[in-house]
């Protein structure tokens, strides 16, 4: 009899917490096109798999009349569940409770689930929807953020960390997502910035909307802070669940293998690439002729589109692809594309994902803006990341591999395991046009018809050096292959590399140029 009363009391208490900030606040949330914290979690995890903890945690603020206030779950939901049957840890800030603001106990709930994820070696998914620090709790709020950032760093490279920005994420709060592996944003809902429009206007006089300053599209296209961009929360959750299928649960595992499939695309690999090295094509079409089921899960599609990164599968196993994109900025390396590629290479290396590099690039983007933006130190990140990586590393040179770009794009010299080249490959210190201008400067200047002489010398240089055979004669590439053999040879190389085991010298950590 008394037991039943206790159970009913418990249910009532839990129901009360589940109401978050109350019906009115939930309606407001819905009016903004947003789901509630618990709805979001349920949309990501397997049905019925979620267990919530710390429901009865209460805030500890006493200043500014906070003492008497009840904040359901202190504005954050934490728990564990499964995605496709595998365990994950999650937290979701509840905007309906005090604007999802972060106080001491709110942060303790988050760090509790973070500690749990690291201990159990399972991924952490954090859903951010918060007005920021709970000002009334003062420095305790800052302490909370610090504890979160510390754990993000500790977990980095051990478990996958995924951040989902589904509301405002401003000030210090943005640094937790920035420290994690993948950041998801949704149009009109996600807002990330250090300093908001009001402050910018008051101190600098610059008038900008929240969306134009730190909206989803800005972070997906301009800043590179976001990896995935969706038009709705639903699409965002689908992207998360798709990503999850490609990555391992922690750094001691491999990603789950799927049944191998042949490519589905009707495109013929040898018909995609124009013979003229100055004409563009979409490198993703090449990737689709190589991967299982012609599936390619692109990451950071909108940012620095001159390089393409993402996951595909070969023989059922996850592979990381890094590929120059001739269709955008001629596929050059620049500050942003170097940054994008380097971080992805390091991700693959940390999580045991082999890397396939497809190369077709004329060099680095010329320009004062690039030089002054530090293309030297950004470009060096790519050299560092490839050199450091010990996962299987395979390169296919499709057309242009010129100069520093040739070295950077996982060349033999950075200890690529296999380097293949198509017969269309041009491996040279620079393109024929540039090289002829330098090597034959005198002949061209002194010729009766300099333009005809230039054309002749360009052709001479092209015949002699714009091919894969000079590099092949030195052993810098292992095999010149026919385009239609590419998938078959890559599958073979991956099979041979499966047991790869190399160790670098012992060190505390290296000093990549960031």
């Amino acid at each position, binding site marked *: 009899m008394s037991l039943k009363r206790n159970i009913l009391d418990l249910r009532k208490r839990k129901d009360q917490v589940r109401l978050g900030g109350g019906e009115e606040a939930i309606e407001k949330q819905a009016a903004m096109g947003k789901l509630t914290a618990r709805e979001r979690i349920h949309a990501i995890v397997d049905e019925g798999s979620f267990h919530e903890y710390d429901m009865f945690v209460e805030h500890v603020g006493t200043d500014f009349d906070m003492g008497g206030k009840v904040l359901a779950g202190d504005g954050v939901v934490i728990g564990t569940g499964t995605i496709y049957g595998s365990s994950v840890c999650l937290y979701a800030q509840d905007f309906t409770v005090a604007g999802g603001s972060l106080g001491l106990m709110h942060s303790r709930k988050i760090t509790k689930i973070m500690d749990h994820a690291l201990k159990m070696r399972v991924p952490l998914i954090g859903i951010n929807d918060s007005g920021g620090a709970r000002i009334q709790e003062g420095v305790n709020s800052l302490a909370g953020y610090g504890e979160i950032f510390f754990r993000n760093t500790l977990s980095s490279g051990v478990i996958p960390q995924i951040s989902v920005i589904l509301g405002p994420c401003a000030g210090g709060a943005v640094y937790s997502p920035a420290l994690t592996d993948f950041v998801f944003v949704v149009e009109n809902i996600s807002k990330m910035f250090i300093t908001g429009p009001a402050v910018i206007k008051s101190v600098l006089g610059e008038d900008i909307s929240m969306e134009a300053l730190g909206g989803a599209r800005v972070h997906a296209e301009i800043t590179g802070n976001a990896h995935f961009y969706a038009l709705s929360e639903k699409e965002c959750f689908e992207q998360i669940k798709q990503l999850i299928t490609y990555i391992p649960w922690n750094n001691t595992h491999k990603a789950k293998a799927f049944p191998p499939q042949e490519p589905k695309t009707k495109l013929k690999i040898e018909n995609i690439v124009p013979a003229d090295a100055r004409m563009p094509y979409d490198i993703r079409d090449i990737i689709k002729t190589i991967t299982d089921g012609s599936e390619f899960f692109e990451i950071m599609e909108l940012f620095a589109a001159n390089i393409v990164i993402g996951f595909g599968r070969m023989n059922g196993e996850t592979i990381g692809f890094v590929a120059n994109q001739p269709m955008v900025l*001629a596929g050059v390396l620049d500050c942003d594309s170097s940054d994008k590629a380097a971080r992805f290479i390091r991700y693959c290396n940390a999580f045991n994902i082999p890397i396939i590099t497809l190369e077709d690039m*004329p060099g680095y983007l010329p320009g004062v803006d690039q030089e002054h933006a530090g293309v030297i130190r950004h470009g060096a990140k790519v050299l560092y990341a490839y050199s450091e990586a010990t996962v299987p590393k395979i390169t296919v040179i499709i057309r242009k591999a010129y100069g520093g770009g040739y070295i950077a794009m996982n060349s033999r010299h950075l200890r690529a395991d296999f380097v293949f080249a198509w017969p269309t490959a041009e491996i040279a210190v620079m*393109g024929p046009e540039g090289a002829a201008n330098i090597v034959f400067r005198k002949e061209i200047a002194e010729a009766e018809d300099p333009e005809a002489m230039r054309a002749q010398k360009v052709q001479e240089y092209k015949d002699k050096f714009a091919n894969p055979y000079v590099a092949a004669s030195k052993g810098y590439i292992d095999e010149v292959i026919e385009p239609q053999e590419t998938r078959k040879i890559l599958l073979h190389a991956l099979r041979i590399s499966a047991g790869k085991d190399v160790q670098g010298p012992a060190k505390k950590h290296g000093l990549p140029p960031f």
Partner: protein
Amino acid sequence: MADQEKKQYIIVHSAKYETTYTKKYLNRKVWEEPNFNNINSYIPGTIIDILVKVGQVLDEGDSIIVLEAMKMYNDIQMPFKGRVVKINIEKGQKIPKNFLMMEIEPVD
């Protein structure tokens, strides 16, 4: 003109590649040779005071403008010994970053 498809090119080492531009590339800042005779605002703000007049000759380090920005009074000084040629601001004016506040010329 607007509906005519315009091909986009990037030139690297004398070779011209057909491609497409990114928004960021199109918006990149084109470098200009700095003109040291121009006193530009390095931060947006409000002109609190103008301490000099046109024609006045000043030494390097002399204060010429007080610019309030980020809640601070910034003391703008002469970068070298010179004469004030033109003043493009007035007291109380709000100016953006890189606004040409004053033009000067060196004197021996």
